[in-house]
């Protein structure tokens, strides 16, 4: 438990840094957000300046520390202000609409990619120099292709040319989101191709790392000892080598979540998927600063949470963390 609590403190520090960066970016940029919007919409009356200031929360007045405190209080109450581009809508409402899409799709695809990639890595590492190794250069190429380029070509081939998958969007037109089969079926149908692109492009990374750690682990004395005892290969691979090789992989998973989220942002743009990434890019291109900043915070917090979950898993998988606590 002590380990988890200490990690929790680290994530609180990281969250605080993100919050602070988010607070200072608009204030350090030459010119201010209000003027940027005013110049973008020339028909706005000069009197709108005050209204926009109030809207964006830039005109809080008082010292910068006063503003900083007000900002922290607002965030704590999930009060991110009002969206500029979709005017009367609250930022928090827009976020609540977009988040479930991203979390479901990206979460599932990432876990699948991790599991399949790790399994392939174990096999490739055990039979080092075998058939799976020959697939590696191809997988590396797949990983080096810009994600969106690969996704666009798959979209063109399997949705536009051959109608295997629907073209973009989160669900079929005319359907009302809700808990009924017509909608759920359509949503699953629309998520297959995006999920497939995420899995195909990220699998190589997991596989390569697992393979390399496996090769190093297999050379360890305890693995050779297990083989010398005459244990069946299956047991040596899974309970001796893979079990130890998976720890760096898990630690890497925590850090990779950030990259996965970044890939997912681009995925949503390619497929016009109604998630948080599409919302972020739309908000940036329409200078909707309150929305942009809120999304950055939400993504950062999601990544921190994912890392915390990985830490909890590590405590269960790695007996050393528990024995250390028992020794205290």
């Amino acid at each position, binding site marked *: 438990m002590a380990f988890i609590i200490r990690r929790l403190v680290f994530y609180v520090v990281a969250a605080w840094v993100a919050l602070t960066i988010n607070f200072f970016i608009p204030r350090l940029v030459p010119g201010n957000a209000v003027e940027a919007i005013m110049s973008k919409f020339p028909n706005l009356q000069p009197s709108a300046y005050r209204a926009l200031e109030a809207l964006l929360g830039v005109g809080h007045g008082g010292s910068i520390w006063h503003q900083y405190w007000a900002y922290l209080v607002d965030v704590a109450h999930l009060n991110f202000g009002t969206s500029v581009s979709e005017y009367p809508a609250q930022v928090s409402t827009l976020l609540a609409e977009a988040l479930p899409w991203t979390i479901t799709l990206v979460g599932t695809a990432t876990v699948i990619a991790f599991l399949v990639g790790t399994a392939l890595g174990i096999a490739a590492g055990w039979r080092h120099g075998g058939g799976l190794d020959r697939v590696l250069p191809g997988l590396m190429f797949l990983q080096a292709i810009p994600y969106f380029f690969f996704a666009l070509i798959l979209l063109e081939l399997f949705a536009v040319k051959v109608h295997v998958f629907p073209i973009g969007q989160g669900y079929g037109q005319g359907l009302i989101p809700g808990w009924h089969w017509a909608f759920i079926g359509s949503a699953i149908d629309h998520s297959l191709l995006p999920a497939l692109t995420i899995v195909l492009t990220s699998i190589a990374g997991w596989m390569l790392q697992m393979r*390399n750690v496996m090769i190093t682990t297999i050379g360890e004395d305890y693995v050779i000892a297990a083989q010398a005892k005459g244990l069946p290969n299956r047991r040596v691979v899974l309970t001796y080598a893979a079990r130890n090789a998976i720890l760096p992989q898990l630690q890497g998973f925590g850090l990779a979540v950030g990259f996965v989220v970044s890939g997912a942002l681009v995925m949503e743009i390619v497929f016009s998927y109604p998630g948080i990434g599409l919302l972020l890019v739309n908000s940036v291109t329409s200078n909707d600063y309150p929305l942009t900043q809120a999304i950055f915070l939400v993504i950062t917090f999601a*990544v921190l949470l994912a890392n915390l979950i990985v830490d909890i898993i590590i405590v269960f998988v790695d007996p050393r963390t528990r024995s250390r606590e028992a020794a205290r």
Partner: protein
Amino acid sequence: MTIAPAIGTELTAVTQEPAQPGWWRRMPTKAKAGVVLFGLFVLTAIIGPLVTPYDPSYQNPSPSASMNAPSAAHLLGTTQSGQDVLSQLLVGIRLTLELGIIVGLVATALAVIVGVTAAFLGGFWDEFLSLVTNVFLVIPALPLLIVLLGYFPNRGEWPTIVVLTLLGWPWGARVIRAQTLAIRNRDFVAASRETGERTWRIIAFEIVPNEVSLIAASFVNTVLYAIAASVALAFIGVADLNSWSLGTMLYWAESQQALQLGAWWWFVPPGLAVALIGTALVLLNTGIDELGNPRLRDASSASRIAGRWLKPADPTPVLSEISQRRNGFAGFLHSFSRSSLLDKAEAGDGR
């Protein structure tokens, strides 16, 4: 490989592999492929913009010049507004590589400075710098990049370069710090300290030369990250869309529906170029990895001595940090990091 009379001499000969004259032949095949491929792109970037057949921005007003398939006049066809795709590609490769290499150099330099400083100063400063590194590692980069660059629309490449550099150093710094910690307690460092060498001299002539492969790998990784991120950012539209890079080419091709209109010659070349540059860098990195970690090398590198296959001796393991005396505030700070879980666990077993 010649068979030397004594086993000991044979082993030292194997570990000194890269210094032998035939180093190119001894390089892993993957690394060789990477060097050749990357070299080709660097050459294109240097020569390309000088030999462009047309001005990449010139828009041919005549409707017959729009969306031409590849032909003798336009080797890679034309865009919707009659611009020559090959010229854009040649200029774009230069700009994208330039950005990647500048970011790679500066960010790697920052990584070396932070990593080596943290490991050498130790104590509070080590923990503080490690904390900063870990915080920046865990904050997702692309959303932050989008937010930051959203405030600098159309100001040229420099905002992108600066922001990518500021977010690009933590990974390298972490690995280099770990390696420095491992090296600084070795005998040859202790020896040079005993002979009275200054700290900066030890760092510059004893530590850093021993980390060359690690620094090279970190540089290659950073270039890869910078190119991938800049292309993705341009594709999203958060970049200077008036300049020609591989990313902005893809942005215009996508926004003017090149694929839907069947203009593959407009969309595929820039994407393929990015993919090939990326592959070259990944190959280079695996090659460097194999040079540093002999177990990953093919069985061919093992040598047969007295009827047994022996592999070259292991180098210093990168991640096993020499356990240090940590006490007071520094120890307290360190206990928040994931690595504390591993090194203290071993100490706990001994109790």
